[in-house]
């Protein structure tokens, strides 16, 4: 159960990271995450290296460290899972801080915490420096099929509208004295959801009619192009190239 997605992560700014074309940043983050995931977990120094790289990116992008740390809370459920691991994993047991724990489990917990946190921080930096709309353009430039991009664009455009309806329903329920206390109140919440679905779907029908009346034929008109120059690709490659070097070193150096 993730936490609610109450607010977007984007932080407006004009840093060099903000100005890079979205497709360059997407590829950079994907390669970075792939390098992190493929690194053997015993090379603790490699993960320290990755963390330094991300810290450098955050500094260049002027994203405050506190903001990044607060947003990593989203992976909390899996941290709980990771912390349980040393106690339930099999294999040789070692005594650590007076507790008998599994050595393999400790490594497993470290593996999940390190790789998961690095992945979350990389995603946070991407989302903090790239407007959602531009991220979609980047996804489109990377040859994602048009219909998927369109669905995502509509979802983004109307997510706040639909969430707003949900909020107004909650206020309406509350002002009539409703407070969800236990399972027996599920019926009221479900009726809200049913109404929300009808409103969303019917809004979709109206949007479609409005689009057809403006000449929609299944394709969206071209959005403004976001081309990337070789220099921009090179600049964006700094992070994944450094990460790939660390990963390669981690595999070669015992």
């Amino acid at each position, binding site marked *: 159960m*993730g936490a*609610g*997605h*109450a607010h*977007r992560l984007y932080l407006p700014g004009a840093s060099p990271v903000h100005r890079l074309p979205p497709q360059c940043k997407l590829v950079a983050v*994907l390669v970075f*995450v*792939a390098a*992190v*995931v*493929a690194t053997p977990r015993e090379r603790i120094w490699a993960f320290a290296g990755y963390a330094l790289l991300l810290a450098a990116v955050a500094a260049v992008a002027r994203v405050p460290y506190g903001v990044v740390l607060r*947003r990593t809370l989203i992976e909390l459920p*899996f941290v709980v899972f990771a912390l349980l691991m040393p106690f*339930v994993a099999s*294999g040789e047991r070692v005594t650590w801080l007076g507790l008998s724990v599994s050595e*393999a*489990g400790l490594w*497993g917990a470290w593996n*999940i915490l390190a*790789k*998961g946190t*690095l*992945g*979350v921080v990389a*995603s*946070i930096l*991407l*989302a903090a420096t790239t407007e959602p709309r531009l991220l979609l353009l980047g996804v489109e430039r990377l040859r994602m*099929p048009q*219909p*998927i991009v369109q*669905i*995502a*664009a*509509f*979802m983004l455009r*109307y997510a706040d509208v*639909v*969430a707003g309806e*949900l909020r107004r329903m909650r206020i309406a329920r509350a002002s009539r004295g409703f407070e*969800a206390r*236990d*399972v027996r*109140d*599920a019926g009221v*919440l*479900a*009726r*809200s*959801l*049913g109404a*929300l*679905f*009808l409103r969303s*779907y019917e809004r979709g*029908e109206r949007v*479609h009619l409005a689009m057809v009346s403006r000449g*929609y034929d*299944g394709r*969206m008109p071209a959005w403004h192009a976001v081309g990337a120059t070789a220099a921009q690709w090179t600049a964006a490659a700094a992070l994944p190239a450094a990460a790939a070097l660390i990963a390669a070193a981690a595999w070669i150096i015992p």
Partner: protein
Amino acid sequence: MHVPDGFINAPVSVAAGVVAAGGVAVALRGARRELDDRTAPLAGLTAAFVFAAQMLNFPVAAGTSGHLLGGTLAAILVGPYTAVLCMAVVLGMQALLFADGGLSALGVNITIMGLVTVAVGYGVFRLLLRVLPATRPAVTGAAFGAALVSVPAAAAVFTLIYAIGGTAEVPIGTVAGAMIGVHVLIGIGEALITSLTVSSVLAVRPDLVHGARGLLRKPELRTRAASGAGA
């Protein structure tokens, strides 16, 4: 539960990514049959609905709360293909914009929470409808059963992926027991909300419930002659 990076090893993540991409490609073709050129706005708004529905927390017990996954609900309401697209888009946006779920684990997340919940949920729903009478309580019951099964099924597939590509040596029996046990409980909440939501849509616009289309008649608007004077 969005799987983060590093939980599943790289080769299995890539394999799950291929499975997810294949599933989404099939869904793209199928959704055009379900919705034709209305696909983008309707699937987009349904995705926004699923996204918002996941923000609605419902109390479970003793101060804890859960929220809907929505795979089965979306499948019953808009059809399985469109539902897969919606879930894939929602999961992708959550990974990209909210860092919820690792980018390298996106394939795993789409496979579990998109493909499995939709396929199992919709399959069970149609099977139940075949043996149940065509009434609103029966459709509601079928939705309950479908959602109830879909969540532990997703947990079982997660356990399977974990057994192949998990990065920690937890005995697989322990993982299976814990995951499926917890998710049976989550499944009850999911089933309750899914069935009640389907029921409330059925009461107003039965024609919009894709999974039960043609099963129930649209409610007629009846006017009754006023009896007596002054009514």
